[in-house]
């Protein structure tokens, strides 16, 4: 294990994959030469190490970037493309949703599309709603796409490595504010399985399901509640598709209570799916209503106090848990 930042962990995954397999290439806007001279940026140093044949700076053309990935993947390469900010995935969404996700099915299984999309995300870096808009629920709604959403450096590396070598299209969502957070991550080609959630804190009285940076919100809330004598289990989904339904149901059946937390908008967000799952398949175990703690149904605001208002915090999670016990 190495200690480093989330951004360095992603960098290590890319480095490992590029070193391991000639079929891997990296492309996107500024993935080679970047305006950021910061080693915590995930593609830092790759151009110098692997050259412009394998680390490709593209024009500002999200549809073509995704088309590049789909076409090259169909030919057997393992493309890793970057979408600079989550809202711009709209511009690539035809290629992603109607092509990457469907063309294998349409071919009757003849062709596969082993591509990876890294999407830079996050709702708390003062850029406003055209840069901040978490749309993971869109992707999880589309059959044919896998969606990973790491919360820590180890998963950032392990899930990305799995994504790159998975024979299907995988979107990995990276919350940029996490890039500078630190932790341990494995050396070399150590992969984390896609579709396996993890209990990051065990507890008895309530399950809090979260992913990405919301996991830290959930953990902070759990820590605070522990002081009050409440035992909360925190489940880090890690992957939204495939969704580890068994892990969610197992925990809810144990605790009898469920709170879901995410930074995306509440209505039709991923929390709806988790809540529905519990209401369908763990109904008998539920001792209390399900609660969703999510952003209100507004675009991400710019003004700092409003941006903070928008984002679910540990207090909101704790209140939701307390309302159930």
């Amino acid at each position, binding site marked *: 294990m190495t200690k480093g930042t989330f951004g360095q962990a992603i960098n290590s995954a890319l480095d490992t994959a590029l070193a391991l397999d000639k079929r891997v*290439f990296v492309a996107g806007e500024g993935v080679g030469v970047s305006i950021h001279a910061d080693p915590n940026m995930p593609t830092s140093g790759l151009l110098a190490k692997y050259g412009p*044949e394998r680390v*490709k700076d*593209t*024009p500002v*053309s999200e*549809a*073509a970037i*995704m*088309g*590049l*990935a*789909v*076409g*090259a*993947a*169909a*030919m*057997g*390469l393992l*493309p890793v493309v970057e979408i600079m900010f989550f809202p711009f995935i709209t511009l690539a969404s*035809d*290629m992603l949703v*109607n*092509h990457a996700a469907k*063309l*294998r*099915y*349409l*071919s*009757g*299984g*003849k*062709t*596969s*599309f*082993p591509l990876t999309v890294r999407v830079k995300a996050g709702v708390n870096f003062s850029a406003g709603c055209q840069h901040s808009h978490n749309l993971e629920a869109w992707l999880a709604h589309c*059959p*044919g796409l896998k969606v990973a959403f790491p919360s820590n450096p180890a998963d950032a590396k392990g899930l990305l490595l799995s994504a790159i070598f998975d*024979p*299907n299209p995988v979107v990995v969502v990276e919350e940029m504010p996490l890039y500078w957070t630190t932790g341990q991550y494995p050396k070399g080609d150590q992969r984390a399985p896609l579709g396996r959630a993890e209990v990051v804190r065990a507890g008895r009285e309530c399950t809090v399901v979260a992913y990405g940076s919301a996991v830290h919100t959930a953990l902070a809330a759990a820590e605070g509640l522990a002081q009050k004598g409440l035992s909360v289990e925190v489940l880090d989904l890690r992957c939204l598709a495939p969704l580890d339904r068994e892990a969610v149901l197992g925990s809810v059946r144990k605790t009898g209570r469920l709170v879901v937390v995410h930074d995306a908008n509440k209505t039709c967000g991923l929390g709806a799916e988790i809540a529905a799952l519990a209401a369908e398949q763990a109904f008998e175990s539920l001792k209390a209503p399900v609660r969703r703690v999510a952003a209100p149904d507004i675009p991400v605001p710019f003004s700092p106090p409003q941006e903070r208002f928008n984002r679910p915090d540990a207090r909101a999670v704790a209140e939701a848990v307390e309302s159930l016990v």
Partner: protein
Amino acid sequence: MSAKNAARRLEMYSKLVLCRAFEDKISELAAERGRLPGMQILATGQEAVAVGVVQALSPEDVVVSNHRSHAHLLARGAEPGLLMAEIMGKAAGINKGKSGTLHMAAPELNVLMTSTVVGAGPPLAAGAAFALQYAGKEALAAVFFGDGAAAEGSVHEAMNLAALWRLPVLFICENNRWAGAQGLAEHCPVESLSQRAAAYAMIGETVDGNDADRVFARARTLAEACRLGRGPALLEARTYRMRGHGEYDRQHYVPKDEIERWRALDPVEAYGRRLTEEGLLSADQDRAVRGQARARVLEAVAFAEQAPYPAPNQALEDLWA
């Protein structure tokens, strides 16, 4: 004219005739309610583009097709029976009935994929061409799209990227003068689409798309340039959509005389006449070519009709690799 050339041209003629026979049969079946599911979109009238371009490709070259794909596939050597079964949604279809008429892929023939999202082909082809370039292969990706598709942003992004990276893409714009019910002048501000090439410092040419020989000759030259690393090229082939947008389209909006005028330029008939005039095709040979095509098509229909549907729950398969 070498013997090789003559043989090639006779092969092209057979393909033209096969494409036409195949789609005439689809048109016939489509008119009988219940024999074909979904919408039937045919390339009738545009066969010389498909046959001319595909003839200029090498086996390593990759093809990306669009909603008018049957002729591209047949020209590339796809088995009519497998296509017909696919069109009927049968398990024996070339894509197990998963694609239907609109999205057939035959990677075994390097027809890598077909997208019916108008304008989606070019970025996909740029991706395929990148893979060829990456592997250092002397091969290209050829992509067919329409005059209507040229208005899509994706086509611009793909041409721009291909030109910038000198990707071996042969962009073939089948300008059939219609996009749905919109005539060229109503949907496009320029008369010639090949002039778009200059916007990317790319080679661009317009060719008579109803003349299989010319299409072949120009496609071969441009393809050679692509393969040698000169970057992408755009070939606009002027042709005509003889049967309306789809089989349900009665073409009420098309000037009658336009249809007549283009009927006289039928690319299959014209090619037969030319080969006949040049003494390469006797009346007997012609009858044989047409007879064989008809026979293959009837066989294809018989094969497809007797083939079973896939099991309903096999719908759950083939999504994940």
